[in-house]
């Protein structure tokens, strides 16, 4: 049971100090999670900390490869509403 940081990470450091297990470390080309240390915050926090501050969608995934922040979750705009919202914004 461990989370993973995948391609798309912008190396913003936000997750690193939050990890209760100190499982996150700087690497090239992007930060990584030590699977042996990661507890998915079990017993420490209700929400998985790295996934709660990561600013990029689909970059933190669970052991099934499922994104914890799926498309649309961080902008607040689900993909199917994207075009409509874009039209509204462009009318401003």
């Amino acid at each position, binding site marked *: 049971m461990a989370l993973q940081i995948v391609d798309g990470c912008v190396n913003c450091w*936000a997750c690193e100090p939050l990890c209760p297990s100190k499982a996150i470390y700087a690497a090239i080309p992007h930060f990584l999670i030590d699977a042996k240390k990661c507890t998915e915050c079990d017993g420490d926090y209700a929400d998985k900390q790295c996934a709660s501050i990561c600013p990029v969608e689909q970059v933190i995934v669970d052991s099934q490869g499922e994104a914890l922040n799926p498309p649309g979750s961080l902008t607040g705009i689900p993909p199917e509403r994207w075009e409509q919202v874009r039209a509204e914004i462009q009318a401003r």
Partner: protein
Amino acid sequence: MELTVLGQSQTTAPAAGGCASSGCGSNDDQLNHLPEHIRAKVHNHPCYSEEAHHHYARMHVAVAPACNIQCHYCNRKYDCSNESRPGVVSELLTPDQAVKKVMTVAANIPQMTVLGIAGPGDPLANPERTFDTFRQLTEKAPDIKLCVSTNGLALPELVDELCKHNIDHVTMTINCVDPDIGAQIYPWIFWKNRRVYGRKGAEILIKQQQKGLQMLVDRGILVKVNSVMIPGVNDKHLEEVSKAVKAKGAFLHNVMPLIAEAEHGTFYGVMGQRGPTHDELQELQDACSGDMNMMRHCRQCRADAVGMLGEDRGDEFTMDKIEAVDVDYAAAMVKRAEVHAAIEATLAAKQQKKNETFISLSSLSIPKKESRPVLMAIATSGGGIINQHFGHAREFLIYEANAHDVRFISHRKTDLYCSGDDTCGDGESVLQKTINALKGCEVVLCSKIGYEPWGMLEEAGIMPNGEHAMEAIEDAVAAVYKEMGEKGLLDKKPETKQRATA
């Protein structure tokens, strides 16, 4: 490495600067009405005093990558070296590297009086890195003022730690005081170990900002408030923000235009949210100025900018260059004190001259009848003088002349926030971009101008003028305004010439 040698470069000439309008603030310095103890705190801070920004330099160190909120105008992938806007840096520094860089720059650019931490994330979302940098600099470089720019979310819990350092000023970005508007700007915040979305998140952020602002003011820290003007979102609301932050005790309000281009990858950029026009921005700044001090000389610097406002010498001070340098800071402090004294003497002389010879347009016998105001664009490379070739200008200073006086309004960049190659933009010619940037101006004053741009400017209804080369800006603007009056050009609305379709 090739750092400049003290005494042999223009950087030691106190009057040299990125923006060299002697007139930013000449319409009586905006700080004149402030109490003496506040003026003493801002007189050498280029971001807080219009007068100071002609003479003193600032730098930012990028030690704070993490952020605790998301703004729709920000993209957390921030390392484009061609972009000049907040939140963008080329090189992230550790606190130790930052301290070395600051001391090296301070020794080489003695006019540098202020070190700011402004990101690329939020300084207070990186408290260890930010405070470690401040702690070391307070000890090793006591002649440098420290400041910080924050979204305010973490401010209340950190305000006492912040006040332990050599900090007189804090800048807060406050875009709204209404959570419904906030929800359109901030999709989420990170709060008490959870991500909080939408209106609820905005509500917490606004509360924290207002609380933090109050706490800073209570502790005697000067607070400048930055607001990003986003048409259709908070443009109508910022007057209320201005009133609210002034009531709390902020001493300066800086309304900045939204920067949103698709290639920046921000939500607003990708979605096609437009920024304000120059006119819209100016109108809002004017409306807010009734409530409090407005700041018009802000250049929206990168989070790793170095030098005078309007210039960025960051490339001269990259870590690979700095690591090779040994700084004798004790010697540098002596030199710095001399340079600062020379600047102060220049300023004092200027102030005295201003008191003795107050030039008003009315003394130039302009017809008193209701002549309309005119905007003029100035190409200058420094010294308050019209001394730049039109084609070399990367920014123009905009002045307004009316029947009573001449005042600095703003600066406009020609290469809007990006100096990248042709792929970084929509292929519009540089000249056409420049002409678009000068929209609303009727005259361009420069030292020289080529044949082609002359024709295109005329076509666009902007009169090029090279007759006042090497003259002081305000005098030249006043003289041109007078000429326009004599030609009867000030009675009627400017001809709205059909713009060239090219």
